[in-house]
């Protein structure tokens, strides 16, 4: 039996070596020979292919002890396990074999998925890009014609800026200081008044913002009527109305559904707000209003392991200790009760179950799986969460590409 296992691992090594030479022959023709040599050595029958179990546990799990978490780092160095004959270098084919994505929950607003077989360095890069580098459209300029409400101009402008705009930012260009046109901006106007006698109060909501597909309606300099031979100059230079563009003709821009219910201000009798806003494309690094996600975060998969059989009173005790209901009790033969781990995913690692002394730590081990990430992405409304994530991954790719082209 042992003999057969060795043969199998030999065969695996060979196929790996072949696929390596195919995929990397262009980039690493120099390193090919030495790697081939390593493959030969690794295929010898008395070389261990696997780490001893206690090292494997340290490599793949964070141990959450009562005092502090242990083995929190990931081992990245390619030669970390060279002394025990285990290769820790990166192989794209290994990554492809191990990497998995499982969608847990999905809607237009948020999604939760498991990303398995990836290093925190990469998962964190995706998270950081989602929050601060995926572009969206947001209100950047507010031109206030009249504001007699209780809310100050600058506070009003700030509130307007934070309203998410549900429009695909990929259809727009960055303005970058250029004059605003139909390709790089969206213009809205807001004109509301709380009529005396008719209403006691009026709530101004995002749905009161009206899209101006022809651009700004405000004149840039009102007293320069001397050169009024051509069109009067406004704050934007639209060459054609936005609603004539194919992408917006049957899909007008506006604040629909939940986004329309966002409260901007409240007016008392006789108060009025009249303003125009210009939305442009930007990224969350510049200002959080451009962040496409309400938030995006991940946690490592919790793992709860019972190190010994826990029965009867101790089982009841342990079950009642857990505030999130990780444990369950099952009845076994002759009236005995046994503890099982039914909801390990719910574990928040509060460590309540191992807090009361060492005997509890001997019963339960709390761990986290280092390469299993539970990602949650909440979209602010511009794009569905899965599209946001793919955009984030694309941005990381462009970063790599630009480094490569800079160096060549």
């Amino acid at each position, binding site marked *: 039996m042992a003999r057969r296992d060795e043969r199998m691992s030999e065969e695996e090594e060979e196929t790996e070596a072949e696929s390596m030479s195919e995929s990397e022959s262009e980039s690493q023709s120099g390193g090919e020979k030495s790697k081939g040599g390593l493959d030969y050595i690794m295929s010898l029958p008395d070389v261990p292919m696997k780490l001893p179990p206690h090292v494997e546990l340290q490599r793949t799990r964070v141990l959450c002890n009562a005092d502090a978490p242990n083995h929190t780092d990931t081992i990245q160095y390619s030669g970390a396990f060279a002394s025990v004959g285990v290769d820790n270098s990166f192989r794209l084919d290994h990554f492809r074999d191990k990497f998995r994505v499982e969608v847990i929950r999905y809607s237009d607003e948020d999604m939760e998925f498991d990303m398995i077989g990836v290093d925190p360095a990469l998962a964190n890069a995706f998270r*950081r890009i989602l929050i601060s580098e995926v572009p969206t459209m947001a209100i950047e300029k507010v031109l206030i014609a009249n504001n007699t409400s209780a809310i100050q101009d600058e506070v009003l402008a700030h509130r307007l800026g934070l309203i998410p705009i549900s429009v695909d930012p990929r259809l727009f260009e960055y303005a970058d200081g250029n004059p605003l046109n139909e390709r790089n901006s969206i213009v809205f106007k807001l004109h509301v008044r709380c009529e005396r006698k008719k209403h006691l109060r009026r709530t101004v909501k995002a749905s009161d913002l009206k899209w101006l597909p022809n651009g700004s309606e405000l004149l840039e300099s009102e007293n320069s009527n001397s050169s009024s031979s051509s069109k009067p100059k406004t704050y934007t230079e639209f060459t054609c109305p936005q609603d004539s563009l194919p992408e917006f003709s049957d899909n007008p821009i506006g604040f629909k559904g939940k986004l329309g219910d966002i409260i901007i201000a409240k007016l008392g009798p006789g108060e009025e707000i009249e303003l125009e806003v210009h939305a442009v494309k930007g990224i969350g690094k510049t200002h959080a209003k451009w962040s496409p996600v309400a938030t995006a975060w991940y946690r490592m998969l919790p793992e709860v392991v019972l190190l010994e059989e826990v029965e009867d009173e101790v089982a009841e005790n342990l079950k009642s200790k857990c505030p999130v209901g990780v444990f369950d009790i099952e009845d076994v033969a002759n009236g005995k009760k046994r503890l099982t781990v039914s909801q390990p995913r719910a574990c928040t690692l509060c460590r309540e179950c191992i807090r009361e002394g060492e005997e509890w730590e001997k019963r339960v081990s709390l761990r986290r799986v280092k390469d299993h990430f539970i990602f949650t992405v909440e979209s602010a409304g511009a794009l569905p969460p899965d599209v946001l994530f793919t955009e984030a*991954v*694309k941005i990381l790719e462009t970063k790599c590409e630009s*480094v490569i082209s800079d*160096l*060549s």
Partner: protein
Amino acid sequence: MEHGSNSDNSKSSFSLVDEDHTLANAVRFTLNQDPRVSFSGYSIPHPSENRVNIRVQTTGAPAQEVLKDACQDLMMMCQHVRSTLDKAVADYKMRNQRDADSD
């Protein structure tokens, strides 16, 4: 921008502008997993300067090529992540559609 020695190209520092932990940490990860690398690390010299320095020392191969390969590896990983995610989401949507239809 690369800072290295004229005679020995196996050790270099690379200074990348407008980048931060996002790229540097991910590249450091792929660099460290390359068997040709003997040392790699990154630093951000000053928080208000948009710049990272990546240090690469190899066992002989040109540091620049090794860094390029690391970026290449990272790109391939990203492409795989993207295609896997797209497929997983499509599968999930299809499964839910079928469940909704059968109800």
